[in-house]
């Protein structure tokens, strides 16, 4: 694994990343200016937000959409709030 500050003698050549699935380690949540907040009382569990989220940040467990959003990777794009048919998601300023 490459660490910040590593020098040219130790990093892979040509910018190669020699492992898969490592985008998880890049927390893009810091890009966000507004965060989605899900109101479970209004939610009808349709999963549209889950399907549309480009960052897999809406989580679903045992067939139920969770209000525990992955804020480490949610960029705050607001697509989930836009797609929600019952306005259960509000974009709240950070």
């Amino acid at each position: 694994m490459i660490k910040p500050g590593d020098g040219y003698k130790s990093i892979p050549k040509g910018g190669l990343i020699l492992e898969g699935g490592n985008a998880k380690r890049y927390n893009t949540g810091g890009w966000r200016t507004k965060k989605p907040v899900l109101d479970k009382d209004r939610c009808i569990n349709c999963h549209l937000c889950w399907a549309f989220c480009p960052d897999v940040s809406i989580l679903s467990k045992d067939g139920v959409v969770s209000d525990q959003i992955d804020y480490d990777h949610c960029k705050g794009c607001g697509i989930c709030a836009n797609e929600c048919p019952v306005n259960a998601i509000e974009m709240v300023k950070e």
Partner: protein
Amino acid sequence: MSSKVALTGNEALAQAMRQINPDVVAAYPITPQTAMVQTFSQFVADGEVDTEYVTVESEHSAMSATVGASAAGARAMTATAANGLALMWEVLYIASGTRLPIVMPVVNRALSGPINIHCDHSDAMGARDSGWIQLYAENAQEAYDNAIQALRISEHKDVMLPTMVNLDGFITSHAVESLEILADSDVKEFIGEYKAEHHLLDSKNPIAVGPLDLQDFYFEHKMQQSIAMENSKEVILEVAKEYKELSGREYEFFEEYKLDDAEIGIVALNSTAGTAKGAVDNLREQGVKAGLLKIRVYRPFPGEEIAEVLKSLKAVAVLDRAESFSTNGGPVFGDIRSILYNIKADVEVVNYIYGLGGRDIKVGEIESVYRDLEEIIDSGNVKNRVSHLGVRE
């Protein structure tokens, strides 16, 4: 067993590509390279090679497809000339920056405009800083030999850089020459099988190729490229030594022609070196101590080695078949003068830009350059640091 054949430079390179039998070739035809990829595509159609030939719609796509194939672990080649090379430009840097060992013959031709299809080196000289190794050839034999050696140089683990195999448009690409080509089995054995250390089709070891590389690591990757280019010098000599055992033909960074006791010398690349040898022979008969240094490896630039040879001369003329428009002379001149400054050599160096757009260069003109050098020594004065040879006023 090698065999003596009569081929054009393009046909010789197509034969080299047939013997290399690359996994993938993605190429677009452009004069004067066309006959090379056309002949090779016939080998593909006739089943003489196993190559996947990708017919692309431009050189940008040709180099992109070659990059993709190489990243997937294939031995991938393409070929181009002039404006085709120019259209590949951004992808050239991606190939070298991603450390893909692509080998590409470049049939040197003037860049438009005005539109011209004939020989000069403005295409390859523009790409001299793209991170590709550049080999140059006086004739079809050398171009063929360079192509075979280029595979080994590029794919060496300490190098992993792409190589351009340069030859002069029409002069070398279209003239029929007698040359020796190696036996297919010898080439196969010499180049071996290419096994990429990391590649995209290795599903057990997934990798990402070409990710965003910003302030924090890009510089380190460029440093690695620079070190690889430095490493390539030793590899180029090692491969040449091994190739000599196979072919009997000797290659180094450059060829010295009658330089041992020379007082005046010319530095040239590609086919003009052959013409200059004729001029040297004529002048030697008249008792003039003239010599020639023919550069084979221009990137990496074997500066220290060239300086070591040129420092014993009194005056040197560098022939550039490309204008840099710096108003300070051509690209090779800049490199040569710079290395002589490093060792504080007491040798006058002048520059002649010549042969642009295929303008013929004759033995007599090169003799006149040597005469100019004699005058510089006699008078102690340099009248013109940079001249344009063979242009009409």
